[in-house]
């Protein structure tokens, strides 16, 4: 499912729509969001390289890790110096101060941006770099920001929101993704950032820490394994919830799916004392029940209670005519038949 998220980012935005945006958030108990970020980054990079994605370049705004980390990562992922011109790492760490960048400016696709507090300048810098990569045509590019948490240290939420929504609505931006450490911000900030993204991937602990329990071993376990919960808002407004397990291994991260029943039970069904799911036997039993409107064909043989008592002798007979749409739908299903329409 992490892959399907990458595909959504790969497919990018339609004309006149906001670009899809992914928030990757975690907390200190499961600090694995960087692994997810790297995974998305390398997946998107390979799509870009293969020419499969809408975007034909990428701008990385590096605030947490130094650009050389990304250059190394992309290099080790098989992206050599020749194609490095499709990436641009925007280092953003020096605040209006003089000559202390250890990165030489504009070598191997790294540009140093010095004025962090001025997000309008950052916006135009990102666009300029992006256009520099993909040219002046109609090609689009995608943007990675690590991390929004760092930006929020210096600017108020309102300006950050302005930056993100401006980027999302720009015609040359295909998709965005960014990192958020949720426990550093208050709830409203987290919510605001999540509202601005079409996909939220949150890294959560697989087991809950009980009070009084010593959580050391749990913490250790969380460094290797966690649950990735995704909330994906589709174009038609429908929301899909998915969960996956992340495993951190020597070679990188791998994702395994949690069985769907379990994940549905965990995400959708509220905590109730009665059972909302049917067992197999119960479903079988239910399918055998003849519903009232299905008596009609056997009407001749069976007399209703009303007829028995003789009350309907002279009155005209009422009838309910029901034609079932399809056989695969259960007779008492309350599913909306027009659900699949894209309105």
């Amino acid at each position, binding site marked *: 499912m992490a892959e399907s998220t990458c595909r959504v980012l790969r497919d990018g935005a339609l004309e006149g729509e906001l670009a899809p945006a992914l928030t990757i958030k975690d907390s200190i108990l499961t600090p694995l969001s960087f692994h997810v970020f790297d995974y998305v980054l390398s997946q998107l990079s390979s799509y870009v390289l293969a020419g499969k994605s809408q975007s034909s370049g990428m701008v990385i705004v590096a605030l947490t890790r130094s650009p050389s980390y990304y250059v190394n990562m992309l290099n080790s992922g098989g992206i050599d110096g020749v194609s490095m011109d499709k990436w641009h790492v925007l280092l953003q760490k020096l605040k209006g101060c003089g000559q202390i960048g250890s*990165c030489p400016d504009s070598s191997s696709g790294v540009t140093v941006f010095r004025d962090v507090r001025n997000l309008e300048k950052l916006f135009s810098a990102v666009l300029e770099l992006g256009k520099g990569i993909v040219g002046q045509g109609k090609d689009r590019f995608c943007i990675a920001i690590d991390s929004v948490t760092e930006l929020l240290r210096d600017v108020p939420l309102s300006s950050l929101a302005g930056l993100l929504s401006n980027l999302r609505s720009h015609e040359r931006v295909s998709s965005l993704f960014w990192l958020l450490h949720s426990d550093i911000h208050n709830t409203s900030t987290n919510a605001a950032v999540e509202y601005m993204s079409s996909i939220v991937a949150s890294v959560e602990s697989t087991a809950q820490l009980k009070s009084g329990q010593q959580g050391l071993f749990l913490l*250790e376990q969380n460094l290797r394994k966690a649950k990735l919960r995704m909330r994906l808002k589709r174009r038609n407004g429908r929301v899909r919830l998915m969960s996956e397990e992340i495993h951190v291994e020597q070679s990188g991260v791998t994702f395994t799916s949690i069985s769907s029943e379990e994940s549905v039970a965990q995400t959708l069904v509220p905590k109730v004392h009665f059972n909302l799911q049917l067992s197999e036997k119960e479903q079988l039993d239910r399918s055998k029940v003849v519903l009232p409107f299905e008596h009609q064909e056997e009407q001749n043989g069976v007399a209703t209670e009303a007829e028995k008592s003789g009350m309907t002798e002279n009155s005209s007979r009422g009838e309910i005519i029901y034609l079932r749409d399809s056989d695969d739908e259960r007779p008492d299903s309350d599913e909306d038949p027009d659900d699949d329409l894209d309105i």
Partner: protein
Amino acid sequence: MERSSNLLDEALGIIYDNSSLSSSSSSLPNGSCVLIEDCVETSASFVIHHILKRSLSPNSSSSVVFLSLSHPFSHYDRILRKLGCNLAAQRDNRRFFFFDMLMLGCTEQSLGNIHSGGLIELYGKIQKAIEDSNSSSGNSKCITIVLDDFSLIEVAAKGSFNHSLDFLRYCYTLTSEFGCSLVILNHEDIYLEEESATPILQMEYLANILIKAEPLSTGLAADVHGQLTVLNKGTYDKTRNSMNKGLGLEERAWSHGQLMRNVVPSRLGVPSMLRV
């Protein structure tokens, strides 16, 4: 005879062997960032001394850039001499760079200057030392940057955590630029009273090895000073190009005898190992 490698080495990912002659094996893994959190009752400065000793051991080629805000050179010199390491000689060998920052933010020159560039100037000095050291030795060797301690950087920055964290971030970039490792000592309990514990959280996100020194949860004991919790998140090693998973988590007790030499961590629940 000292054991070749102890539990703390193991947890930090230091491979130390007295008998082996291989060089640069006894320093921290490249690119690692170690955050040491201690509190008033249990000081963890001995971890810094231990890392110093390992990094400057004769069969290693790594060097140390030391930023001291809490003690003068003579303090460390005395302690390390007891541990069998001559800091003054190492300083002359240009393997130990000592920045005496006791007066940071106090002198008239740096007063008022600290926001606009005092810390940035300091960063420039560190960067220059590293570049010099790298260029003189030819091949890039492992350099450990030690910051003792971070809370005093905050004091020097007039209590602005944001500025101090910026400084830390600049230093952090050196870990991937030059393959240095970064060791920071900070006090956990000074952030306890704040409404949210975000300052310490932001530093914990940065670190890939987190060491916490706390008093024993069971109370005071005559020999045992406290316990260390080491959380090694693993580092990305450029040279090996793979994720290096160290120990996930270890719990130790340590004892402070009369001599610093007696500081030997051991696993909790193994009391016989506490005395050396």
